[in-house]
């Protein structure tokens, strides 16, 4: 364990093999990562504890860290050699816990580079435990660490109250650390200009633009060179043969292979378990998931994300959040489920409510985005643009409203901005692997289940009843055909599947824009929904759902009526201006009904 941003995960992935799992700590939604390694013929469990600055917890993740401490046989305390003083605060607290501790002095090379000299032997004497300098990204010192795994001595220390502990740290630092002056490097300059708003905002725009270009490049590359050829050349003949064997029709055939379109299997429209059920997650969605999580891993491990949090703090305050809440929003672009999990790190119930509602309402996950791009791309990039501009407008409008209506205030940003670092390929690869495998585990069962439901709905005739009941409503407000109701129902299970169901309906580009927007806004998928019930509680989730449904009707209706041809009508602009005025005029008051408790 150790402070955030000291390279714990890099040490962890150096120690463990490929059998790494991420799980929730019992009774909480705090995630931790566990792995196994072979050591002297035995299998030992190694746990990557969430980062913490102190054992006097200031948030849920830190509480978990403190709790996990009890179960360890040996505590490996990873310490940032460039920030010894602050890191020793945790180390000294650990030494009081009567547990064997090894201190790993990581980022040793960076410290030398910064002109920091640390006398390791002296530090060992002061602390009374082994101290091992490492450069985890290059694997230096890891062997020395493993060699000390049998260490079980316990030092009993009492450093007293907080002020006395800091005094003790001061004495140690004076003795073991020497600083040499050095000049600013290019990296230092880059680190600073990426935080200052004047230079940082343009840099952020460039980085985000590049990120999306890379995601599209990798995603499309994988689809056209890997997944599509595989499905067309290898998988299609197999399925065609199976279809013939099954007699080209009948209940089982339709369930597994689906309906033949013009006598052939259509992977997007047949809706069989083995055809569409495998094709949508594997061929259309996974390529983009891989691309997204690869880029996200790079942004995380280079230390860029916290800078983004600092830059957007201003705008996030307008919607009642602070800069850090950009993290769930960005995670949500990958998958809403981990985004919903990350919301627990926000402080107040109010922030959690606002952040989850905004995330669910306006952030389409990568699976859905991939399908939006697939469906609308052929009509031109501007329609994809429309969807995202509308969603952005929804995000800010709903946020402004919630900030006015919900009693309470937003708390302040406080976070460490780590230095830029070259990411370790191994850690990025391991993280990518874990995220993709969890996508497989969670998404594919839902897709298959969804296809069974669709087939059952059609076979039992329920769909016609529903289409007759709700269909006219869809038609009048959203301008969508009655059959689109199936897609909307499917959206509860999987949004990508729901988008796929729009394909055979021959919608106009405008209808597709409305449908994409409505599908994003109206309700989270069932997986996200169940996580959020746990996070927010049923009553708050009910309120959040209410916000979503109202927004859906307003936004879907607005898009349907205000867009004519290539832009907004006069009436559309008028409504936008009225809404903005309404928000400005809305008094800050204690609106009882909206109280989040």
């Amino acid at each position, binding site marked *: 364990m150790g402070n955030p941003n000291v390279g714990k995960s890099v040490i962890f992935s150096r120690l463990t093999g490929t059998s790494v799992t991420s799980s929730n700590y019992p009774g909480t939604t705090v995630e931790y990562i566990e792995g196994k390694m072979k050591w002297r013929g035995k299998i030992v469990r190694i746990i990557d504890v969430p980062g913490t*600055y*102190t054992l*006097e917890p*200031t948030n849920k993740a830190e509480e978990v860290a403190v709790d996990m401490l009890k179960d360890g046989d040996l505590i490996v305390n990873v310490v940032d050699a*460039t*920030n010894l*003083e*602050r890191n020793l*605060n945790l180390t000294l607290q650990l030494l009081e816990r009567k547990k064997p501790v090894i201190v790993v002095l990581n980022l040793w090379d960076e410290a030398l580079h*910064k002109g*920091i000299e640390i006398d390791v032997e002296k530090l060992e004497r002061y602390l009374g435990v082994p101290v091992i300098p490492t450069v985890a990204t290059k694997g230096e010192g890891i062997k020395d660490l493993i060699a000390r795994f049998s260490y079980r001595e316990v030092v009993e220390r009492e450093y007293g109250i*907080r002020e006395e502990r*800091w005094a003790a740290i001061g004495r140690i630092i004076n003795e073991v650390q020497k600083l040499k002056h050095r000049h600013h490097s290019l990296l230092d300059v880059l*680190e*600073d200009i990426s*935080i*200052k*708003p004047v230079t*940082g905002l343009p840099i952020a725009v460039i980085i985000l633009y590049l990120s999306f270009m890379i995601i599209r490049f990798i995603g499309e590359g994988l689809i056209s060179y890997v997944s599509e050829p595989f499905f067309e050349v290898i998988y299609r003949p197999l399925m065609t043969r199976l279809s013939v064997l099954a007699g080209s029709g009948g209940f089982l055939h339709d369930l597994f292979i689906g309906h033949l379109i013009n006598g052939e299997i259509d992977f997007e429209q047949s809706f069989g378990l083995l055809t569409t059920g495998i094709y949508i997650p594997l061929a259309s969605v996974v390529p983009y998931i891989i691309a997204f999580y690869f880029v996200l891993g790079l942004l995380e491990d280079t230390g860029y994300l*916290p800078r983004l*949090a*600092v830059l957007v*703090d*201003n705008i996030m*305050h307008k919607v009642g959040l*602070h*800069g850090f809440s950009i993290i769930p929003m960005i995670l949500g672009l990958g998958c809403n489920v981990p985004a919903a999990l990350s919301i627990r790190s926000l402080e107040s119930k109010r922030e959690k409510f606002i952040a989850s509602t905004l995330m669910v309402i306006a952030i389409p996950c990568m699976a859905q985005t991939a399908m939006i791009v697939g469906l609308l791309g052929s009509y031109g990039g501007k329609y994809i643009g429309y969807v995202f501009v509308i969603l952005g407008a929804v995000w800010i409008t709903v946020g402004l409203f919630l900030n006015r209506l919900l009693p309470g205030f937003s*708390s*302040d*940003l*406080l*976070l*460490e*901005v*780590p*230095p830029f670092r070259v990411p370790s390929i191994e850690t990025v690869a391991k993280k990518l692997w874990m995220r993709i495998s969890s996508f497989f585990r969670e998404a594919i069962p839902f897709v298959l289940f969804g296809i069974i439901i669709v087939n059952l709905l059609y076979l039992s005739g329920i769909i016609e009843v529903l289409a007759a009941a709700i269909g006219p409503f869809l038609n009048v407000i959203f301008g969508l055909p009655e059959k689109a109701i199936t897609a909307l129902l499917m959206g509860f299970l999987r949004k990508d599947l729901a988008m796929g169901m729009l394909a055979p309906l021959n919608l106009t580009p405008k209808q597709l824009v409305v449908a994409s927007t409505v599908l994003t806004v109206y309700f989270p998928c069932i997986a996200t929904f169940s996580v959020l019930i746990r996070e927010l509680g049923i009553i708050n989730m009910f309120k959040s759902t209410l916000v979503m449904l109202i927004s859906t009707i307003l936004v879907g209706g607005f898009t349907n009526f205000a867009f004519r041809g290539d832009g907004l009508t006069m009436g559309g602009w008028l409504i936008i201006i009225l809404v903005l005025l309404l928000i400005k005029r809305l008094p800050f008051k204690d609106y009882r009904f909206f109280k989040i408790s």
Partner: protein
Amino acid sequence: MSQATLHQLKQGERGRIIGFIGGRGVVNKLNALGLREGKEITVISNSFLGGPVTVRVDNTKIAIGHGMAAKIIVEVL
């Protein structure tokens, strides 16, 4: 010697923390990040319009929300 709260410092200015306004919880959080009494800080960026203040303390950079920065009293150096 002049006193100020952290959010009044401009980009590039330096100061020494001499105290905090606020409860134990806030002070505990700031302390854990290395912001303690007696520490020297340099303001890297102080954005206009109520954005966060980013400071360098020792070898780290900490971003502090506008409201919280107003609770940190510094001696301007």
